[in-house]
């Protein structure tokens, strides 16, 4: 069974790093994207076989260079995981106190970035689906996408848009065999959570490794017969 080709954004910390590790452990071919060169190179060194790509999904001009590198490295794509996220203002702020620039950055990272990257990779995903390999786009969501939590305005509104967009993509591309998932991994012990809730007790939070296992299992289930190596 040939290995699955997976791209993960935000792959050098938190859930993204755990996803990259989990996918590699299951025999997938992995390309991961993150902004910081130093971290990308370190994670690539620590995960032999993974392709590290330096890029910022919130920047329009970075999207095609990222796509060239993902598709060049993997030769195609079966799974895209849009994981990179921006919290908006940190510390969290009431909407009335939120700077427009912080809101825009959250939208650029959490909505426009996944839209643009998905669009650039759609041809490869459709080719994989036609080959019977299945094709899945997983957009990492949040309970803030559904519930109106005070202080989570920029993040919550952007994640709500991402969640809705996932549903529309899914409806439009069902016939092409590309399936979209929007999953809330739960409150995790990640750098982003520290940024949002600095005084949270890490022991009460989910380990990103556990969330990564759950997400990969969900993707694998959707892929069906040709699941990520070892996942079934």
């Amino acid at each position, binding site marked *: 069974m040939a290995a699955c080709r997976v791209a993960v954004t935000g792959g050098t910390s938190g859930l993204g790093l755990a996803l990259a590790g989990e996918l590699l452990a299951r025999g997938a071919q992995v390309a991961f994207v993150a902004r910081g060169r130093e971290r990308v190179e370190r994670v690539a060194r620590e995960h032999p076989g993974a*392709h*590290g*790509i*330096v890029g910022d999904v919130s920047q329009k001009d970075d999207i*095609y*260079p*990222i*796509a*060239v*590198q993902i*598709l*060049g*490295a993997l*030769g*195609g*794509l079966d799974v895209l995981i849009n994981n990179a996220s921006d919290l908006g203002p940190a510390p969290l702020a009431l909407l009335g106190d939120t700077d427009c620039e912080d809101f825009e950055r959250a939208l650029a990272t959490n909505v426009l970035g996944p839209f643009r990257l998905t669009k*650039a990779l*759609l*041809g*490869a995903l*459709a*080719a994989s689906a*036609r*080959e*019977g390999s299945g094709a899945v786009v997983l957009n990492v969501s949040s309970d803030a996408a559904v519930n109106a939590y005070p202080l989570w305005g920029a993040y919550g509104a952007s994640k709500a848009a991402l969640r809705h967009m996932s549903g529309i993509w899914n409806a*439009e*591309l069902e*016939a*092409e065999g590309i399936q979209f998932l929007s999953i809330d991994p739960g409150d995790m012990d990640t750098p982003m959570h520290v940024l949002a809730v600095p005084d949270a007790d890490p022991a009460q939070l989910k380990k990103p490794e556990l969330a990564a296992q759950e997400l990969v299992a969900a993707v694998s289930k959707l892929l069906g017969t040709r699941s990520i190596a070892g996942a079934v």
Partner: protein
Amino acid sequence: MTSASQPIQRPRDAKLLAIDVRGRIQHWPRARFVELLQPGDLVVANDAATLPASLSGVHVPSGGAIEVRLAGRPSLADFRRFTAVVFGAGDFHIRTEDRPLPPRLSPGDRLQLGPLAATIEAILHHSRLVSLAFDGSPDKIREGMARHGRPIQYAHVQAPLDLWDVWTPIAGPPVAFESPSAGFAIDWRELASIAARGVRFATITHAAGISSTGDPELDARLPFDEPYRIPPSTARAIRTTHANGGRIIAIGTTVVRAFEHAAVADGDVRAGEGLATQRIGALTRLRVVDAILSGTHEPGTSHHEMLCAFTDDKTLARANRELDERGYRTHEFGDSIWIARTVQNLPILEPAAGEFARI
């Protein structure tokens, strides 16, 4: 024909000149292309994405400014070795025909192309055509190309082209040096219309080479060898379509070249990778493809020569006159032509496959 000068993949007013199996010509809005398809047909497009294959830099031994245009590769997997055409100083604002020559190139010469370093391995029987090998790992080479390279630009398109201008909607593996631009006509809505008509869709990946070098001697050698891959699902779809009497519709010349190369042994298109080396012209007997949707190409180019495999000279000459008279636009972002392969000795009254169903 006039050149399409705006990088718009699907202009609303795009036109389509269609030639049927009897050599009759009709003019259609390209948006109605789907109506030329019949249930049971198979439409095949090239899903190669376009590389940022234009790399500016310096010829290290002379210090001279150069532009390297990657133009060919030995296989789809190799990301280190390329065939390339080298230009002198200047950029796409100067027509390729008028570009200054590069410094004298020799095997072993080092090239510094932004973050990429390369060595000329051989001069390929022409002072500007070289094979070169990049330093570094494939990941590093891809990063250098992605960050520093630009898609090959055209003097007839004034605004600089970005990758999103030249990737077709279905673009996948980045292996083409210039866009398989016939595919601009097919977007996701079009794919849904194709499916709704009972027509299947499949892809191949073909490393489309460069369309022009600005040098008549080099242009006479086009197209260069092009590696391609035919996925198993596409090979199966061809067999099913043939078995059921459907037609194979190629979106673009690269699909024709790949299929006819793959089928050269016994007419059967097998899945897998190959290297298309042949030229297709008036003397080629097509074994796989029944009709082509292509850009409009000017006589004398290798793309135009391929169209001669579909219909006779007289019909093409008539079509070229009508393209001129009716103001069709040529080149990558231009209008389109559809040619159903001429079927000889058709009975006069019986409607044949591929005939126009309506005007």
